[in-house]
């Protein structure tokens, strides 16, 4: 059974069309799914729907078979333990006035997770490659990549089954980006991952399945390797052709310099 099941979901209106129209996708336990879309594709909205921050206008979202209803407090508390999110901007996703310990421990407190919180926070920090005593410092004492690790620690501390990432590496330097992608790869061995990104290269390196979103609709979905090797939809082809390649001999839409 799917961990997450999005069934024909529709939402909102903008510029004469719906933000999301007839969107369906499944995330199986252990899956790594990459959601690719440009601005205006509706990917951020879909993420917010999956997090239960807004309700769809039409269609259903199910988690573990049960419908996701943001109004059901008891259900949401259980859901929030199971599904967590990492945001794009490491500079605005951590409360600057709180110590790292409070930041990472917040889900444990608010969701009333039993156990030794101090130990769990320490474990989470180690799992993301930080030292345990980072818990005593403030966010501004860390670099962008380290802050993102703190955000990831907060997301995994309650032991979720689903990790959602919203452009989680887009704001990072290249070398840091590789390390954080590796971290996500390691984490994806013990939880499902939905990785939203406009960067197909990152998705290709990390996700076994890929979903392409264009103007609120899913235009192509499938195994990443298959879609990249033989893209069916014109938009997918246009996306792939637009990505500049490192070796100018590879086909790209920009002319190599003479």
């Amino acid at each position, binding site marked *: 059974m799917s961990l997450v099941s999005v069934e024909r979901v529709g939402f909102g209106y903008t510029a004469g069309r719906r933000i999301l129209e007839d969107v369906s996708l499944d995330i199986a336990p252990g899956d790594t799914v990459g959601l690719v879309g440009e*601005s205006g594709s509706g990917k951020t909205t879909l993420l917010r729907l999956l997090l239960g921050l807004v309700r769809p206008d039409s269609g259903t979202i199910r988690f573990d078979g049960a419908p996701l209803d943001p109004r059901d407090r008891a259900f949401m508390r259980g859901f929030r333990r199971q599904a967590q999110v990492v945001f794009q901007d490491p500079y605005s996703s951590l409360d600057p006035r709180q110590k790292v310990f409070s930041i990472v421990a917040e889900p444990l407190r608010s969701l009333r997770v039993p156990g030794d919180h101090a130990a769990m926070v320490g474990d989470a920090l180690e799992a993301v490659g930080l030292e345990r005593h980072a818990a005593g410092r403030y966010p501004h004492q860390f670099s962008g990549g380290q802050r993102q690790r703190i955000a990831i620690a907060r997301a995994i501390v309650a032991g979720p089954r689903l990790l959602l990432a919203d452009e989680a590496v887009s704001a990072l330097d*290249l070398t840091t980006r590789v390390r954080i992608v590796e971290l996500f790869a390691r984490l994806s061995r013990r939880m499902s991952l939905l990785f939203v990104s406009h*960067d197909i290269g990152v998705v290709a*390196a990390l996700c076994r399945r890929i979903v392409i979103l264009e103007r609120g609709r899913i235009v192509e979905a499938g195994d990443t390797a298959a879609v990249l090797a033989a893209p069916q939809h014109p938009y997918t082809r246009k*996306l*792939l052709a637009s990505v*500049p390649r490192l070796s100018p001999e590879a086909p790209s839409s*920009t002319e190599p310099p003479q």
Partner: protein
Amino acid sequence: MSALLDIAGLRIRAGDSTLVSGLSLSLRRGERLGLIGESGSGKSLTALAATGLLPAGLAAEGSVVLAGRQVIGTPDRRLDRLRGTAVAMIFQEPLTALDPLMRVGRQVAEPLARRARRDGRPLSGAALQAAVLGLLEDVALPDPPRLARAYPHELSGGQRQRIAIAMALACKPDLLIADEPTTALDVTTQAEILALLDRLVRERDMALLFISHDLPVVANTVERVVVLRHGEAVEAGPVGETFARPRHDYTKSLLAAARRFDEALEGRP
């Protein structure tokens, strides 16, 4: 043919800390140079120093010769003349580079009129408007008469960046400095803007200083690169050669990182 931009031993300091040190590069008309680095590498500061636009609190030493004139130590009003004519800049975030309260047509008209005045052939009225529309067509904007009356927030990111490019071209610069011009854009829009820049730089035989952290973009846009790390140039050379056979460890690590994602796209994980 002498260099349009000749930087020698550039050093930029803020108080006690050195942000850029010992940087040298030169650029001639028709040449394209890429400045690669991660955040904190000093690449944007170098671009600002080249035009004498370093923010207060930062001091530049060494030599920066732009269109034959020394920039370091020269008062602003003499540099002003250089900025509107010899060099123009485009920035990363077009939303903040444009005046939100002014129609974009007028924003393009200003540098056009200023440049025409300096050339001794002032433009105004219908002639100016025609020149504006012509420039908007040059940057491949659809329906120029309608778009010229739009405000920045009514345009898409790609359209705003085209306006920024139009404003830069209005100065008829010899040197175009582009600081991460496509980083904030969608990948399909990025491809279009890069193609546009490529065509315009070629057509007008301009020099291009392209600053970016995105290696594949740089690989497809310039002929030579300088790799910056913590304000120092660690490697320089032709882009194909440098990317295929990097010498410095830092360059190697950058390329290894970029290659990871590049190869994943090729289906070689």
